[in-house]
């Protein structure tokens, strides 16, 4: 895990890191990867990939409407909101 990979990961997670943190985190992440890497020693040929840890399938809901939340109940929880919606800084990609 080099500094470049740490920077790319930080960029994807939208977090800022200073130079000192980057080195420490590179070291931390490397140790985590090495630890998890042990799994690669296991021979998984012919083993189907696990898609889900619980053995359930087809948990489906009927297409019937239920009441939604009144917007007055959740809009005020946002850092900024009008009566109608969440207000966020202008984004034009």
């Amino acid at each position, binding site marked *: 895990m080099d500094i470049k990979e740490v920077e*790319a990961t930080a960029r*994807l997670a*939208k977090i800022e890191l200073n130079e000192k943190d980057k080195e420490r985190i590179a070291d931390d992440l490397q140790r985590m990867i090495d630890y998890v890497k042990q799994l690669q020693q296991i021979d998984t040929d012919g083993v189907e990939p696990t*898609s*889900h*840890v*619980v053995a*359930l*399938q*087809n*948990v*489906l*809901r*009927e*297409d*019937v*409407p*239920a009441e*939604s*939340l009144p*917007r007055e109940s*959740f*809009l005020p929880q946002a850092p*900024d909101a*009008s009566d*109608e*919606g*969440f*207000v*966020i*800084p*202008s*984004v*034009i*990609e």
Partner: protein
Amino acid sequence: MEFETVIGLEVHCELATRTKIFCSCLNEFGGEPNTHCCPVCLGMPGALPVMNRAAVEMAVKAGLALNCQIAKFSKFDRKNYFYPDLPKSYQTSQYEYPICLKGHVDLDVNGEPRRIGITRIHLEEDAGKLVHGEYGGTMLDLNRGGVPLIEIVTEPDLRSAEEARVFLEKLKADLSYIEVSDCKMEQGSLRCDVNVSVRPVGQKEFGTRCELKNINSFKAVVRAIEYERDRQIDLIEDGEEIKQETRRWDDVKGVSLVMRSKEDAMDYRYFPCPDLVPIVLSDEDIERAKREMPELPDVKKARYVRELALPEYDAGVITGDKSLAAFFDRCVALFPNAKMISNWIMGDVLKKAKEYENGFDDMKLDAGAFTDMLKALDAGKISAGGAKTVLDELLTGTGKSVGQIIEEKKLAQISDTGAILKIVTEVLDANPQSVAELKAGKDKVMAFLMGQVMRASKGKANPQTVNELIRAEIKNR
């Protein structure tokens, strides 16, 4: 150098379920902002999604309509990216195991048959809507967040902007037929990203492609592809290289602009969604879905041509619009003269439909009343002109029956031979000169005599009957 354009499409289509994909909030266009929201579609911590059965069924139907293999096993993954319209910072989608695979759509492009491959169809949730320029910033409306989508990905099989347009028209017709989506591009229920590259004719390898986003109409699809093709060809001819990038189409200015280059390409870090369990379909489920499929436009069109002897073109126009085809089917059931029905639809009905915002759908023309009008015309009770008046009256929506309209507007033709014969005799008696001329073979006089009789009957005599009676009467004189 001659160039060939290579196009692949990614079409997003909102499913016409009543509720959202993972919660019971309404899936409805319009509505006050943020009134169709709950902990699940707001992305509240701890809220758990539950898959909508109807969305699965609709995705399967869409797959069948596009000749896909339906996956017996499919599952959900998280596609991670940050954008304010996505409350969870990931979109729940299908990555490795989509619900439908490997299909195709057969097109007729200017008389030439073309088969366009479908790579896959997967289920996912829609994002919220950003409303710019109000409140001094941007307002986020999450009503659309969690609306079920299918994403249809084509193979790079399309070769021109026109082919892409024909493909989308076909897709729209098929998906609206099977009632999985209303496919309204202007309301955003059908959206499309376009991948375009060019290569010298004869070259096997694909050129470097660019992806175009923000295309909001079929016309814009055509313009965007043609612009992008020309831009790439110009670059190549100037000896420059094409960079792989995502570009935003600006339909007002008619140009595309770079959104992000390949280096900035998103890394979505897909991983399995632990909140949703796999969807497993049995052969029986798939067979049942097949049985429930309605007749698709192409099949219907072929049937109209084969069984009802409609011209290919007319059959194409009528089957191209689901509600028009349904109307036609109802009419044929009530009045078996398919050709006459089709002629009136292709003529007066569709001409009038143009005056309505949403075309034929808005006309609210009743098949029963419409065929009553045609029956009256066919039986000679009213003239063609009278039939047009009846149609106008039916469209005013007063709910009057055809019989009432004929009576109130005094449109009934006199087909009663006795009554007409009386007028004919009077007219012939009054015009001995013309009778003599007609007997001498001057057929031109016929028009004059017909005119006299029609005038005397105030235009209500059935012209066919008048003609026959004059000719018969002349012989007796």
